[in-house]
C-alpha cells in the first residue's frame, strides 16, 4: 500500500514540522489518515480485528512519536483502536446471539448497551463489556467471577471468537471493515462538529450583561461566544492578547466583526481586570485524565486569578481533546519551547545569546513555552460536546472513549524513542 505509506509520511512530516495548527485540525487529519490506513489494510481470514489493530497501532506509534506534545494524535489513534475493538465485539456478540439464542431478543443485542438483559448470553456479554470498559459498578455487580478473566479475553478477544465462528467469515470480514470505517467517519464527523455541539450550550452558561474574559484565541471559544450573541444575549468580552503569539488580537477582531463588545487587554492586566469578570471561558489544548488541562501559555495565571476572585473558570474542549493519560510534571514534559525570537529581537541580543561569559554557558537564556498546565482544582467546569462536566468526572468520560488496553500505546513508543 504505497499510497497510504506516502500519506503517512507526508502527515508525519507535517507533524514534525509543526505545520498543523490546532488540535482539532490535527485530530481530524489523523482520523482521516487512519481511515485510509484501515481501508487499505488487507484483511486476513482469521483474526481480522487484531490485524486492523496492528496496522493502526503501527501507524499511530509513528504519528505520536512525530509530535508527542500534540496529544490529539494519540487520542484519535486510541479512539480508532477502540472503535475497532468495539465493532468487532458487537459483531461477535451479534453472531453469538444469532447462533445460540435466536429466540432471545435480537434487537436488544444490537443496542448492546448497559441495559442488556443478561440472562442467557450473560457470560459472554458481561465479559465482552468489561473488556471494553473499566469495571463499572454495574458490571461488578453483574458478575464478579468473570471480571478476573477480562485481561485475557481482551488481548485475544478478537481472535478467540474469530476462530470459533468461521461460518460467516467472508460476510463478517467485509462487515467489520465496513463498520469500522463507518464508525471512523462518525468520529471525523464528531470532531468537525464538536464546535457546534459545544456552542449550542452557550446560552445556558452566559447570561445577560455578563462579562467574560478569555485569553488567546480558540475557535471553540469564538463559536461559543458567537452562538450566545446570535441568541440575542448581550455581554462583554475581555480578551487578553496571549503573548507571545498574540492570537487574542485575532479573536478580538473576529468578535468585533460579529458585533460583540470587546476589550483587548494585555496579559499582565488579567489580574487587574478579573475582579470585574463574571466568567472565564477558555479553550484547551488537551484535557488530562485527572481533569487537569494543558492549555495555551498564560492560562495557569488566569486560572489562579480566577480562583482568587471566585470567578468560574470554564474550559471548552471537544471530546477529541480528552486524553486518557495522567500528567506527570506536565510543565516540562508536555510542553514545547518556541523560538526566542518571539520574545527578543535577535539583532539586539545576539551578543548575549552566544557563549559570552567565557565559562562556556551563555549568559542569557530565553524561555518561551507554548503550554501551561492548569491543575484540576482550578477548573470549575468542562464543557464538552456531551455536556458540562466536573474535572473529577473526566476520568469516567475518558473511559467511555478509550479502551484500557490502548493506554500502553504511548509508553511503548516513547520508550522506543
Amino acid at each position, binding site marked *: 500500500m504505497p499510497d497510504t505509506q506516502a500519506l503517512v509520511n507526508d502527515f508525519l512530516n507535517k507533524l514534525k514540522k509543526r505545520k498543523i495548527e490546532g488540535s482539532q485540525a490535527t485530530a481530524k487529519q489523523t482520523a482521516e489518515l487512519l481511515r485510509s490506513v484501515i481501508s487499505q489494510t488487507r484483511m486476513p481470514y482469521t483474526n481480522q480485528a487484531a490485524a486492523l489493530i496492528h496496522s493502526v497501532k503501527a501507524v499511530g506509534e509513528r504519528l505520536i512519536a512525530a509530535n508527542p506534545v500534540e496529544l490529539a494524535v494519540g487520542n484519535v489513534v486510541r479512539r480508532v483502536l477502540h472503535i475497532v475493538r468495539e465493532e468487532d465485539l458487537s459483531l461477535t456478540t451479534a453472531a453469538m446471539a444469532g447462533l445460540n439464542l435466536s429466540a432471545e431478543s435480537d434487537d436488544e443485542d444490537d443496542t448492546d448497551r448497559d441495559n442488556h438483559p443478561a440472562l442467557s448470553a450473560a457470560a459472554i456479554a458481561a465479559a465482552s463489556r468489561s473488556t471494553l470498559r473499566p469495571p463499572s459498578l454495574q458490571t461488578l455487580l453483574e458478575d464478579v467471577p468473570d471480571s478476573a478473566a477480562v485481561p485475557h479475553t481482551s488481548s485475544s478477544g478478537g481472535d478467540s471468537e474469530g476462530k470459533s465462528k468461521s461460518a460467516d467469515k467472508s460476510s463478517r470480514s467485509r462487515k467489520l471493515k465496513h463498520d469500522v470505517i463507518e464508525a471512523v467517519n462518525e468520529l471525523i464527523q464528531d470532531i468537525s462538529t464538536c464546535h457546534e455541539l459545544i456552542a449550542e450550550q452557550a446560552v445556558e452558561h452566559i447570561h445577560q450583561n455578563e462579562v467574560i474574559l478569555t485569553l488567546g484565541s480558540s475557535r471553540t471559544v469564538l463559536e461559543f461566544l458567537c452562538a450566545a450573541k446570535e441568541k440575542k444575549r448581550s455581554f462583554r468580552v475581555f480578551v487578553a492578547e496571549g503573548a507571545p503569539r498574540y492570537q487574542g488580537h485575532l479573536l478580538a*477582531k473576529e468578535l468585533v466583526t460579529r458585533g460583540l463588545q470587546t476589550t483587548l487587554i494585555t496579559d*499582565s492586566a488579567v489580574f487587574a481586570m478579573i475582579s470585574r469578570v463574571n466568567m472565564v471561558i477558555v479553550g484547551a489544548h488537551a484535557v488530562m485524565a485527572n481533569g487537569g488541562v494543558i492549555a495555551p*501559555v498564560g492560562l495557569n495565571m488566569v486560572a489562579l486569578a480566577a480562583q*482568587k476572585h471566585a470567578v468560574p473558570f470554564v474550559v471548552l474542549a471537544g471530546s477529541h481533546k480528552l486524553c486518557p493519560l495522567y500528567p506527570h510534571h506536565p*510543565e516540562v514534559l508536555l510542553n514545547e519551547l518556541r523560538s526566542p525570537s518571539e*520574545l527578543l529581537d535577535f539583532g539586539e*541580543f545576539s551578543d548575549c545569546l552566544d557563549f559570552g561569559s567565557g565559562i562556556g554557558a551563555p549568559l542569557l*537564556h530565553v*524561555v518561551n513555552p507554548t503550554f*501551561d498546565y492548569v491543575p484540576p482544582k482550578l477548573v470549575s467546569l468542562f464543557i464538552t460536546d456531551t455536556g458540562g462536566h466536573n474535572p473529577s468526572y473526566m476520568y469516567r468520560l475518558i473511559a467511555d472513549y478509550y479502551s484500557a488496553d490502548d493506554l500502553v500505546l504511548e509508553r511503548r513508543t516513547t520508550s522506543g524513542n
Partner: protein
Amino acid sequence: MDPRRTARTVSGPKVRQVGFFTPAPPERSISDPPRFQDPIQPPSPSPTQVNDHSPSGNSLSPVMIPPAHHHSDNFLRTALQVTSPTKAFSYSAKTVTIPPENEDVASSFSPGRKVFSAKSPSSFPGVKASSVPASELTTVSVVNLPPGISEKAGGASVEVQNDRPVSAKTLKEKTSKAERRALQEAQRAAKAAAKAEGTKASSAASKVVTSANTKPSKAAKSSSQKNDGSQVAASEKKGGDRAPEKDRKKDAPHPRMQYDDKSRVEKAKKRAVVKQTEARNRVELFRHLPQYEHGTQLPDLETKFFELDPMHPAVYKVGLQYLSGDIRGGNARCIAMFQAFKEAIKDYSTPPEKTLIRDLAARISSYVSFLIECRPLSISMGNAIKFLKNRIAKLPLALSESEAKSTLMLDIDRFINEKIILSEKVIVKHAVTKIQDGDVLLTYGASSVVEMILLHAHELGKHFHVVVVDSRPKLEGQLLLRRLVRKGLSCTHTHVNAVSCIMQDVTRVFLGASSVLSNGTVYSRVGTACVAMVAHAFRVPVLVCCEAYKFHERVQLDSICFNELGNPDAISKVQGREEINYLDGLVNQENLQLLNLIYDATPSDYVSMIITDYGMIPPTSVPVIVREYRRDHLWS
C-alpha cells in the same frame, strides 16, 4: 552664571522689602544709603572672593542686626570697608555689563537697597574684611559666617553662597555631598535648638556666631527669629498652629478627580493648558479615569511653548519628557520634577504685593497641574509635592525671599538625597542579605531598586541566577535584561504568561513598587500582581522593595478605582512583530476598546515582606510606617 547670580542677589532685597518689616530700617536706610550705596553695588557682581561673600552677606544681614556684637563689628568693618572702595568700584564697572535682569533689579533695587543697606553693615563689612588683610579675628569671623548664611537663608542661590565663601570653588552645587549633608545637619540642629531654646537662644546664638564653625547656622537661625521680634515669633507660632490642623485634615486623603463627573471635567478643561481630545472608544469600566488621545498633546504643547508664560522652562521640559516617556519610573520622575521645581524656585521672584508663601505655592500648584496634564502623577510624586508644599507653607514669614528660596532648594536637595538616593542604598543593603549563593531570583519589569540590589549582590560575588519577566507593551524588562547581562549576570528572560512555567525553579521574587498603600496593597507596574500571585501559588517568597517616601495612606482593594491608562494604540500594535496586524483597520470600530492599564494593585496576601529604608517589614506594618514617616520627616 555670575551675572545671573548677582542679579538674583540683588533681587533678594526686594523680598526683604516685603518680608522685613521691622520699624527700625527706615531710619537707618536714610542714614546709611549715602555711605553704603557705592560699596554695595560693586561687590555683588564681582566674582572674586571679595564680593562672593557679599551676596551672602546681604542675605544674612537682616539676621544679624540685633546682637550687640555685630554692631560693634559693624563699626569695625565699616571702617575696614572704607579701605576697600577702590576695589569695589572696579567691580562695579563689571556690573554694568550684566544682562537685562539687572535693570529690573535696579529698578526694584532702590527701595530694597535702603532696607538692605540698613542691615547689611554687619555681615557686609565682614566680607570686606576678608578681602582686606585685616586683623585675624575678623577674617575668622568671615570664614565662619558664610556657611551659616548659606544654610540659613542664602541670598540668591544656595550654591553661590555655599561653595564660594569656603574655598572659592567655581563649580557651584558640585560641593561634595558630605559637605551639603553637614550643612543640612547643622541646619536641622539649628532649627531644633531654636525651637527649644526660645528666648535664650538669641544670646546664646550671638555668642556662638563668633566661635565655632558649624554653629553659625544655628546662630543665624535663632538670631533671625529673635531679630524679627514679636511679629516673627507670632507668625511662627501661627504656622505652628496651622500645621497640626492641616495634618488632621490630611488624615483622610482628599478624593481624587473623578472623570465621570461631567461638570468637574468641564471645569478642569477650562483650566487646562493642554487641550486633550478624548479617546475614541473609552473603556466603560474606566470612565472615572482620564482617557485621552495620546500623542496629540505633544505638538500642541510645542506650539504653545511661548504662550505659556507662567510655566518655567525647566518644568515645561520635564513635562514634555513625561509625555514622551523619556523619563519613567517613580524615582526618576520624582527627581526630575524636583530638579525642575528647584530651577523654578531659583528663578522665582515674588511679584509685588504678594507674599512669597502664597504665590509660590500657587505657582507650584500650577506647575503640578501642568505636569498632571502631561502624565498623571505617580503616588510618589504626590507625596513629594505634598512635602514641598508643606515646606512652603511653613516657611517663616520673616525670611527674606532669597532666604526662603534657598531654604526650599535645600529642602528639595535634602529630600532627593535622603528620601530617594539614600533610602535606595539602605534598601539595597537590607535586600542583599536575602540573596544567597545558588538562588534563582525573579523580577518583573524594570525596577531601579531591584536592579541596584542585583548588581550589588553580583559585586559582592554572590552566585545567583536572575529571571527577568517582561510584558507588553512597555517591555521594560528587556532594558533591564540588557543592563544585567552587560554586567555579567546570568539571566533568563521570559514573558509574564510563562511565569508559572518557570516559577518552580525560582527561590525568591524581588519586585519594585510604585507605591505601597496603607492596607498593604502594593501598587505597581501592571503584571506585578500576576507574578506575585503565581509566586504565592508556588510558595515562593515575594519581596517588595519600596522607599518609604512612596508609601501612601490611601487604601485600595482593586486596580480599577484608581489607575492610569496608557496609550491604547500601544496595545493594537505589537512592537517588533509586524505580522500581527489583525486590528489594523478596526481601531475605530466602536465595539472594540483597547485597554492599556499602567498599574495594578497586588493584594497584601501575596507579599511576604516589604523592604524599605526603615527595614524589612510585613505588609501589615505599612500603616505604622506611613504614620511615623509623616510625623517624623515628611511634614515636620
